[in-house]
């Protein structure tokens, strides 16, 4: 049993948004990878945005591709 949960109803609703969690994950990973791989601030923004968009689009496309398959 976890010591930091349970959550109240509003939090549960927020946490069950799979897309929201995927976007949050993409945001964290894009930010760190952009800072690690680029030194110029403009390049960091550009690369981070591209990574984030790549995560988001790939997630949605894969979601639609899996749609016909049963759980």
């Amino acid at each position: 049993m976890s010591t930091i949960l349970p959550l109240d109803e509003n939090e549960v609703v927020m946490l069950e948004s799979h897309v929201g969690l995927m976007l949050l994950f993409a945001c964290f990973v894009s930010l760190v990878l952009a800072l690690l791989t680029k030194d110029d601030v403009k390049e960091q923004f550009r690369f981070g945005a591209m990574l984030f968009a790549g995560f988001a689009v790939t997630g949605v496309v894969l979601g639609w591709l899996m749609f016909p398959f049963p759980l």
Partner: protein
Amino acid sequence: MPRQQPKPPASNLAAFVCTLAWVVPGAGHLWLGSRQKGTVFLVVLPLMYATGLWLGGQVFAFDLSQPLVALAALADLGIGAPYIIARVAGFGEGRVVAVTYEYGNSFLVVAGLLNALVVLDVYDIALGRK
């Protein structure tokens, strides 16, 4: 005339900042003077780890009888002090029944792996490769 202190070898400095960067995410970059990157890592990586705990993810213990669990534990350990704090404080026991259990695990594992990349980056900077 004051005598100059001999500079520590680069490998000693690299070992020190790598250990520092592993224990406290971002601290290695801050030590080497990269304030922007260090501050962002210091905030983002522990935040990502905390989010994984909040989502009901499990901080895995080393269990060599289950190789995948051992690998997940190794990845979790990459975050350094937050892993140790979570283990000691009893967080991260994991709620297997939670919808977000696997999401939490992903956040925890990836936060550890990202910090491992940060340690490697610090190593390169300390040796003058970047």
